[in-house]
């Protein structure tokens, strides 16, 4: 019985083409991440610097016994260094088997968007590099950039040694 109900719900989701997104503020702009990648959100905490890497990689931190890499979202997008406040948080992402803590300014909301509402990102004109954005959506009168994690967390780019 239970299985059937679950199946129905899944069907509904597919029919509605609705995905859940995690929304957050960074530098007063709203960004969204496909919620299926988000493992948990924790208050920001101290981390250990790992030298000789891309400036946006702050280092590693201990999330319940796992060593997780910390990336400053704003710095990664070449906007500025995130200034730590009380509301700063780590979004723990599970992306291609890698655990990554993304430093953001503030948590906003988790909500579902119908696929039909998603707009293609413009070729240029966005604050962050267009390749980091997969879609745009309007939410409560504000523009939300849905992030393309494959580009944002590109392993080859991030793991390049910097001297």
């Amino acid at each position, binding site marked *: 019985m239970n299985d059937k109900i679950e199946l129905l719900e899944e069907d509904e989701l597919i029919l509605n083409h609705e995905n859940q997104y995690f929304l957050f503020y960074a530098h007063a702009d709203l960004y969204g991440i496909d919620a299926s990648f988000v493992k948990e959100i924790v208050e920001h905490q101290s981390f250990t610097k*790992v030298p000789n890497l891309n400036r946006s*990689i702050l280092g590693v*931190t*201990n999330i319940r016994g796992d*060593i997780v*890499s910390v990336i400053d979202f704003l710095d990664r997008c070449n906007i500025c260094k995130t200034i730590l406040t009380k509301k700063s948080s780590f979004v723990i992402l599970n992306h291609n088997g890698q655990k990554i803590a993304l430093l953001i300014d503030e948590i906003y909301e988790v909500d579902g968007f119908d696929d039909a509402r998603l707009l293609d990102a413009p070729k240029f004109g966005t604050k962050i590099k267009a390749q980091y954005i997969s879609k745009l959506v309007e939410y409560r009168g504000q523009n939300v950039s849905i992030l393309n994690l494959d580009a944002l967390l590109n*392993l080859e780019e991030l793991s390049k040694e910097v001297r």
Partner: protein
Amino acid sequence: MDEDLALFYEDSSDQLQNMENALLDIIKVGANANSVGELFRAMHTIKGIAGMFGFDDIVRFTHKAENLLDNIRQEKIVFSSELQELFLLVKDHTSKIIELCVNEDGLDAQSLKEQTTLIEKIDSVLANGDLAQTSATLGQNVTLDFSELSSNQDNDVWHVSIRFAEDFFTSGMDILSIFNYFNKMGKILFNAPIISGMPKIQEINPLKTYIGFELEFQSNATKEDIEEIFEFVEDDVTLFIFKRSDKEAYHELFSAYEGLQNILQDLGQYEEEKKTIVPSEDVKTEMEVPFQNENLESDLKVEKKELAKSLRVDSNKIDLLINQMSEVVIANAKIEALVSKSEDSPLAESVEELKLLLENVRDNIMSIRMVPLKDSFIKLRRIVNDTAKKLGKKINFVIEGGETELDKTVIEKISDPLVHMLRNSADHGVETPEVRKSRGKNEEGVITLRAFADAGMIVIEIEDDGGGINKKVVLQKAIEKGIVPAGCVLTDKEINHLIFEAGFSTASEISDISGRGVGMDVVKSNIESLRGSIEVHSVELESSKITIRLPLTLAIIDGFLVQSGDTKYIIPLELIRECIELTPAMRKSMNDNSYVTLRGEALPILDIRKHFSEKSYPNLRENVVIVEFANELIGLKVDELYGEIQAVIKPLGDIFSNVKGLSGGSILGSGEIALIFDIVNLINSKIERS
């Protein structure tokens, strides 16, 4: 490879290993019932499991081999040394076809050809062996059978009633094999298949079991022994086992199965007044297999005992357990730190108690990964034997301390270096019998492989009583290759260690045995990558000994915690020679160079802060940790020294894969993360850059 297949592969590899051990024993000390039994069991098991997977090629081949072994076991054929050689080939071939089948490649032309020749050989042995069969052994067999038949009938005749559950076949067992077991244990005097549960033919589902049996079974086995036959299927059968003389039990049986009394009475197998039944050959089931009973029965028992002793667990599960246990220990360290501030002594005591318990648990979990070196050592025996034979040398290979335990991952990683070093010993070390004679030594050389625990590390020694390292030749070669400048004077130790230099090879004596691929430099770097060390000691014309030291496990590192800039680092303790303070005088003498002179020698200094491009603050107290790397001393300049620490190594993640000189991270008691230095890579990358 799916999971079952992987299990099959693992299982059969174990069996092949058993087989090889037994074979080598036989070659060394001659055949006895035990070792031949071992061989037979291993072959039999492989055949069995291969059959379950439908690997007909393996079954066909192993069946032949099993036949041969059975004849040997019954002493119909003498296990001559030629036969032993043949069997080694048979074993190798089995291992090959198993690999092919598991990889779903099927047999290629070459292995098919090999198989045909082997089968032909076995067949010819079987044919000749049968002729050679002595009448004496025949007579023995007959009397044995006879004595069994004539044993007291009434007391050892059992009535066994079997009903199979409908889905019995899904248990993977075969009814036929149950009868085989019966036939091995005793004699089935009477067998009535009960088919009353059989549906109409159009309703028969071939996957289901409808049949039952009522047996009269003669054996001196106990009820438990008979029940053991059904050990693996006990949930899928309904059993009644009782002595035929037990009237009560019959009533119980009949009340369980309606109409059974009539059936048995019709068949003349049951009367209210019991009559004696004359055992007759005719009622024997055709499923009987002509095995000698006692041997097999005891063999089976041995097998079962071995099964119960060990449990196969996915090693990832153990890794996870070790990981989590380490977290618990770390978490407890935090509590400890808090408690020590609070001055609550009963609480402190309980925490201390908990700490000891947790450490015990951790040690025990660690020990799960530990396996005795014996198995991997014994594998090496073959290599020494083969090498010796190829070179016409006589070598006695002695294994000592095989019970010493080591982390399985470490064992896997040292097996190749060991093979190489043993080949070296057999090839370059031990001399030919003639030379040995002329040197006044026993013709038979001795290579000893020894393992023991020493000061928290495992020591493995390979010692041979051969010619030792010819220092003159080695030095000359080294000069020729430009490894050392000509006219340079080296100590004996330094010369011996030249063999570990890259590019060093005694090319004049290269053979197809050693000097294939791996050089001693590779061996050395393999050992060092396991955080171990290697040393060689040699007395010319007398002996040479290679000593390898390895850490007990790779999961934990004994380290020294230091800080440089904002980051804490752990340096592997075994590499550290000493720590010194960088005094202002020394700093001045450095004069912007990166070396200091210490006790008359120039010591290169690697500034960790600079190396990892961190900001530097002048006027800070600076310390230098001196590490030994490739027989050279190198200083690492850091800020703070904290002291020794036992650290659990954790991976940093793929993002950090390109950072040279870090092998992982470790979580400290405070929850902070310290980075673990990979000294070898750190210094190599430094040397590359300068």
